[in-house]
């Protein structure tokens, strides 16, 4: 066998401070009440840094700073705002190696993905929205669209920097200012981004980063001087936010969970479909809201496809996220690992057949082997609930109509995939799927020009593309 020697990316390329304050009005300072959280490397459980927990007073300060900055920032000509965004994009490209290592350390995702997917997309988002900043009058939202004010943004831990980019780039391009709260398990790349803002000489207060857990997020979204709330995360928290924002006049976009169907027809390009299935569910350890977590395969090719899929899964390399050859890294937190284990055990208890390739896992850290469940039906909990881990539920269908019916039979509607060599079938099926993104003969492909968002319990509003401007303009 051709064994690959360890090929670790050097972690010394990035400096991590022992502790981090809050980034408010262009300066770092500690939280007023002195509470801290520890952020750990999920691959080793090593503590990476202590971060401040922002309390209500800190949120007041951050929102006030953003409100002060709003006056001058929103009055800048679009072309001037664009210069800052272009500058940020270029700095991110220049410092992408540092950021990729930091992201993999704090999140557990493989360096191959943070280097080849996350960071290029982050830079692309800033470049893309920089381009819109002086063309807002032509975006289709009236001749002179206005920014809203202070955007309170709360982002998840699965793509820490990319979700930051999705939130901050359109907000700044449209003339809003921002208070952003990263997830408590993955705050480091957002704090690094604060340094990027300083390097770009972004005026103080335009971007503020406040760290903390759920309470901090709640203070932020409930703050009366926040004009716009943008949240990406679980449907459960999304509901709470929708409740707290209701009736306040704040604008709200929610990007929530998913349980996407990846539909493979009998005339699919099989080898590429297998890659798409693997990429759909095992990319980023399955910590992807639009993950293809339900495989719907036409019964006539199910056996053949599963054989190919298992053979392919046996080559997945699970382990050290900083090793350049790692395909699947660490689960982001002990809590998430417990959730994945719980739902997987339920799947087995409900009678689905569980399979994982032989796969040694490290002793320390949070790990879960790539897993598929066959013999799953619509009645199984693992076919309905979002697992948010490397666990695939395999269901079969007989006809295109049945595939569409099963794909849509979920409270979610974020994404879907269609695999067939027949172009007419792609169009016909895509038309009937109630999902915000439908991929054809590919999966988990992202581009800043393409709007992203959900149907039903997957949320509302769109991020990305021209559509993504709308949430930040009146």
């Amino acid at each position, binding site marked *: 066998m051709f064994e*690959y*020697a360890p090929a670790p990316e050097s972690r010394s390329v990035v400096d991590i401070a022992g502790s981090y304050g809050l980034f408010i009005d262009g300066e770092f300072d500690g939280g007023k009440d002195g509470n801290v959280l520890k952020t750990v490397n999920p691959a080793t459980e090593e503590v990476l840094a202590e971060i401040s927990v922002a309390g209500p007073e800190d949120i007041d300060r951050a929102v006030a700073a953003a409100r002060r900055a709003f006056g001058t920032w929103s009055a800048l000509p679009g072309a001037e705002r664009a210069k800052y965004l272009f500058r940020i994009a270029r700095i991110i490209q220049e410092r992408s190696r540092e950021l990729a290592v930091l992201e993999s350390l704090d999140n557990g995702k493989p360096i191959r993905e943070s280097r080849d997917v996350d960071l290029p997309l982050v830079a692309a988002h800033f470049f893309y929205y920089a381009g819109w900043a002086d063309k807002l009058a032509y975006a289709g939202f009236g001749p002179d669209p206005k920014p809203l004010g202070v955007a309170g943004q709360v982002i998840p831990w699965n793509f820490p920097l990319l979700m930051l980019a999705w939130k901050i780039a359109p907000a700044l391009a449209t003339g809003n200012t921002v208070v952003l709260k990263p997830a408590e398990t993955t705050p480091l790349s957002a704090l690094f981004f604060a340094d990027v803002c300083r390097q770009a000489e972004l005026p103080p207060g335009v971007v503020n980063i406040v760290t903390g857990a759920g309470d901090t997020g709640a203070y932020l979204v409930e703050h009366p001087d926040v004009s716009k709330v943008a949240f990406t995360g679980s449907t459960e928290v999304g509901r709470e936010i929708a409740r707290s924002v209701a009736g306040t006049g704040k604008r709200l976009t929610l990007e929530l969970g998913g349980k996407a169907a990846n539909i493979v027809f009998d005339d*699919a390009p099989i*080898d*590429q479909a297998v890659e798409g299935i693997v990429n759909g569910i095992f990319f980023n350890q399955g910590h992807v809201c639009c993950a293809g977590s339900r495989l719907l395969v036409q019964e006539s090719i199910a056996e053949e496809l599963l054989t190919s899929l298992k053979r392919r899964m046996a*080559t997945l390399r699970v382990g050290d996220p900083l090793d350049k050859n790692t395909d699947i890294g660490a689960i982001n937190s002990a809590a998430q690992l417990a959730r994945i284990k719980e739902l997987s055990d339920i799947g087995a208890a409900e009678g689905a057949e569980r399979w994982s390739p032989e796969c040694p896992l490290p002793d320390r850290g949070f790990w879960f082997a790539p897993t598929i469940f066959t013999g799953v039906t619509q009645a199984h909990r693992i076919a309905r609930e979002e697992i948010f881990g490397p666990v695939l539920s395999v269901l079969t269908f007989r006809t295109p109509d049945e595939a569409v019916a099963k794909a849509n039979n979920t409270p979610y509607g974020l994404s879907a995939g269609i695999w067939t060599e027949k172009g007419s079938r792609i169009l016909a099926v895509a038309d009937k799927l109630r999902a915000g993104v439908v991929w054809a*003969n*590919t999966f988990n492909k992202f581009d800043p020009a393409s709007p992203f968002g959900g149907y039903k319990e997957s949320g509302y509003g769109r991020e990305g593309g021209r559509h993504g401007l709308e949430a930040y303009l009146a």
Partner: protein
Amino acid sequence: MTVTASAGLSDLRSFLHGLPGVDKVGVEARAAALATRSIKTSSKAKAIDLAIRMVDLTTLEGADTPGKVRALCAKARRPDPADASCPPVAAICVYPAMVKVAAEALAGSGVHLASVATAFPSGQAPLEVKLADTRDAVAAGADEIDMVISRGAFLAGDYRHVFDEIVAVKEACGGAHLKVILETGELGTYDNIRRASWLAMLAGADFIKTSTGKVAVNATLPITLVMLEAVRDFRERHGRIIGVKPAGGIKTTKDAIKYLVLINETVGDEWLDPDRFRFGASSLLNDLLMQRTKLTTGHYAGPDYFTLD
């Protein structure tokens, strides 16, 4: 389905057209992703030695002379005269006219002797000429024949013609191994490459080979990936292991290692063997030797420390 030599044209066509399609974007993305594997230190050293043992050291020029071929043969036997631990290459690959010279030069070395035949590189000659070409090469001492398919017939949909030619050449080969060159750069689509691979395997090829090295697009990673998937699936269906040979355009150690990664993660270690996988190349060998020396000594030696072919 088993296609036998007696099967009709319609059977062959429906079988080949019934193979699953290849999605161009997907196969190229997969090949590009595998190309990012980072092969270092001990695994790099093993990969380099394996790659050297897989080289079909090739000269296919109008200007080839006995002197040039003898020099190449000497190099094939002992690629690095300064280092006795360096393995010999798999084979020498020459035109039929040069086989006799090469056979003498390689006698007793264990290095195989391959000859292109069948009106290489275009394949545009009557079958009788192709068969005579093949028999001559075998009679002169070639134990491997690299034939070209009639791309014209393939593209015209005359699969039976291509199939029958391969069967006939295989017979003319006698005991010699047959590598069938698909000339993938002229086939236009990955679907065609998959079909041509199956056609060649069903007709009795021992190896399927990408290219002559004489057209604009020669071996690429995605093309080789499609061919590896074909030999993998053929083995599952028919139990026979067919080799794969990318040829043309592979010039660096880095390139060669990408191919080894492709094998490793597509068909597995049974194909990590010079009997199952070859590189059709010439300048690749010196880069492999240079990297090999770098790994053992810790520094690069200049090009004059490696022999001219």
